[in-house]
């Protein structure tokens, strides 16, 4: 039995210690906003915040996450940076299919929290782990700048 804090709420889960948080969120806690894309930390679709830092939940085991604060896409809008990023995403119509975007938003929120006015290079560094097959990169970049300026 592990105790996880997800979006500020404490949750008990009875799962193997090596189970990735991705599957705990999706299949045990029924929180499907965090997406599966690759399972090997290549695509970023599964990004969550662990104590405020962006991590790939497909490789983060529940054993390692226990006792720490997990923030997911379902909860990130409650933070000022998350809300700003979500608004910029809507204002600039970033989304196409949208599947990668929960992960993009989690990475972008962590970025502007760490660097309130990121440069293009900062964006490249923070966001290059998030693949978008629909090719929305032009707008992701613009939306991060817009959120930073908001």
């Amino acid at each position: 039995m592990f105790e996880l804090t997800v979006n500020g709420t404490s949750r008990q889960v009875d799962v193997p210690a090596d189970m990735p948080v991705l599957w705990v969120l999706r299949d045990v806690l029924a929180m499907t906003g965090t997406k599966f894309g690759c399972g090997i930390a290549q695509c970023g679709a599964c990004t969550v915040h662990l104590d405020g830092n962006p991590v790939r939940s497909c490789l983060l085991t529940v054993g390692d996450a226990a006792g720490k604060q997990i923030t997911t896409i379902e909860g990130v809008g409650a933070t000022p940076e998350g809300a700003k990023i979500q608004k910029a995403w809507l204002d600039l119509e970033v989304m196409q299919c949208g599947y990668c975007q929960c992960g993009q938003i989690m990475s972008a929120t962590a970025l502007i929290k760490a660097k309130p006015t990121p440069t293009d290079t900062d964006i490249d560094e923070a966001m290059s782990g998030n693949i978008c097959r629909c090719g929305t990169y032009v707008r992701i970049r613009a939306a991060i700048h817009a959120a930073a300026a908001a």
Partner: protein
Amino acid sequence: MTHMPSRRLFLQAGLAAGGGLLIGLRLPGHNRALAAPEVEPFAPNAFIRVAPDETITLIMSHTEVGQGVYTSACMLIAEELEVGLDQITAEHAPPNNALYADPFLGEQATGGSTSTRAGWKPLRQAGAAARIMLVQAAAEKWHVDPATCTAEHGVVHHTPSGRSLSYGKLASAAGLLPVPKDVTLKPASAFKLIGTPAKRIDTPAKVNGSLRFGIDVQVPGMKIGTVAASPVLGGKLISIDEAAARAILGVRDVVKLDNAVAVIGDHMWAAICGLKAAAPKWDDGPNAGLSSASIVQSLAAASDADGVEAHASGNAKAAIASVTKRLDAVYQLPFLSHAPMEPINTTLHVRPDGADVWLGTQVPPRTQAVVARITGLRPDQVTVHNHYMGGAFGRRLDVDSVEQAARIAKNLAYPVKLIWSREEDIQHDFYRPYYYDKVSAGLDVNGKIVGWLHRTTCSSVMARWLPAGMQKGGKLDPDTVECAVETPYEFPAQLNQFVQVENPGVIVAWWRGVGPTHNVFVVESAMDELAALAGVDPIEFRRRHLGKDPRARAVLDLVAEKSGWGQPLPKGTGRGVGLQIAFGSWLATVVEASVSERGEILLHNVYVVADVGPVVNPDTLAAQLEGGMIFGLSMAMYSEITHFKGRVEQSNFHDYRALRINEAPKVHVHIVNNPNAPIGGVGEAGTAAASAPLANAIFAATGRRLRRIPFATGQLSQA
């Protein structure tokens, strides 16, 4: 209940179940290859419901794969219906047949197209017909001439008497009226909504994680499974360690098929661990020796002989027999996987008396049919719950994964969600064909092309997917020569041929941009090579070969201006151009790229000029071109599926790479205003346009001509 079809307009109207006006319309297929013949009796595949509670809903059996089609469709209806975009919502056709489809046919009709192009006229006509009927209902209530009434923002007004009634109050009365025989649509100059960058309606649920894709489906009592199929197509399962799989905590079931195994558990992690423990052993079967080298060899050998003639004008072979300057080039495009972000998944519940399927599919009828076939149920006992798709790019036009899921699920008493790993997705895709294209062309002393020969050698998607779409007695796949026969240019003599080579070890499928993604690369690369041979600037060379088409010239001229064509660039940087007429849209593209001393390709800027005729939503249009371009550049830079010992060698995003944000160029989109031309498609145009201008830019930067995709996997670092 009134059923008054207007065959002229392909519309039907009636009283909706639960009251209100229901309009049914038929949207035609967007791709002539995929278009089904118009069915009798008239079968609507989209519905507009004006309900007594003032809600207006567009119900489409069509699906959203990310191109904003719901928003565009609502804009088209709202324009003529005289409502705001905020007054209309879009829904997937619900599984509840009774509510929507029964008034017309007794079943949920599906199929057709997801594109704005297909809906351009019918959706506006449907909106106009609904408005006319609502106005008529008001006029009858007030005993006035409908011509003295006006409709605005969901309300009908009778100005002389100062009376007004909302659409909701009129909807049920309107539902009893006949459909107008004919409707007059607004001229482009009167559009209020069309042409504006209206906000997309499906996006709010995509920023907070609440939007449910197929993979997010949760059904009471559901278990989750994952699958391994034979790594070689046609191979068989020999054995598994079932005891080891069942020993994993949380594993519930193991299902063996002749060519695959599934492990089902309480959650995906149990399934993944169980499948690993099962350690399946395979008999590789007849395709065990398949390799990319052997496939390419067989294509090359077959390409030596003449193929099926797709087009012949003049005598191209004779025309180039005696020229002094000629090009003889082979262009190669690899097998491609689709790799949409959302991995393949199907949720199924098979019962003795029926089945439910939850997934995102581009082909609901095929989904229903395959589940019925595998389970032995009647199609009407199979309910398809369609969902938003996390990309598709053509992958979800096939139902192989649904067939596999049905074969598994029929052994289980509970609903099961079957998810493929990314590895399974990439290694068990149906692939974009490998194209082996030969172009020969000759120049006269003035640098004009006198003859053009283009022979494509490949396997046929059409022959498998829609045999009825084959031409010339089943011998010609028209998709293989799309944009090869019809180019923006006029050649005095031209010959196009198709050589079909089927490969039993690889199944081929549609891929974003279909024929044009293949042929625009070949034609526009060859044009660039010929320009160099003639010693003429690439844009000027194209201009000299254009026919009388003013739209091609206009986009080409504009892209030259927007891209700063001809202005100096740093050493190692080059510009390349491409021109295409595809999907009814005219595109000219300039890519600016550089090549480092180590042979790395860097993408800087892309300029796209598009003439798509009328523009429904310029922002969505730009997004589609930006995204399509990045998708196409990703392909041109990195994408390649190769085989060895019958197996696909790539497995995940580390070796089947996609462009990342740090590698993506800036994309500058310019849209030509041409509201009175027929409407063109854009979802695939950007992808088709990407690779040739990149190859041409690399040539401009380095003098190296790359005739084989992908470009960035070592070709430039090889001597």
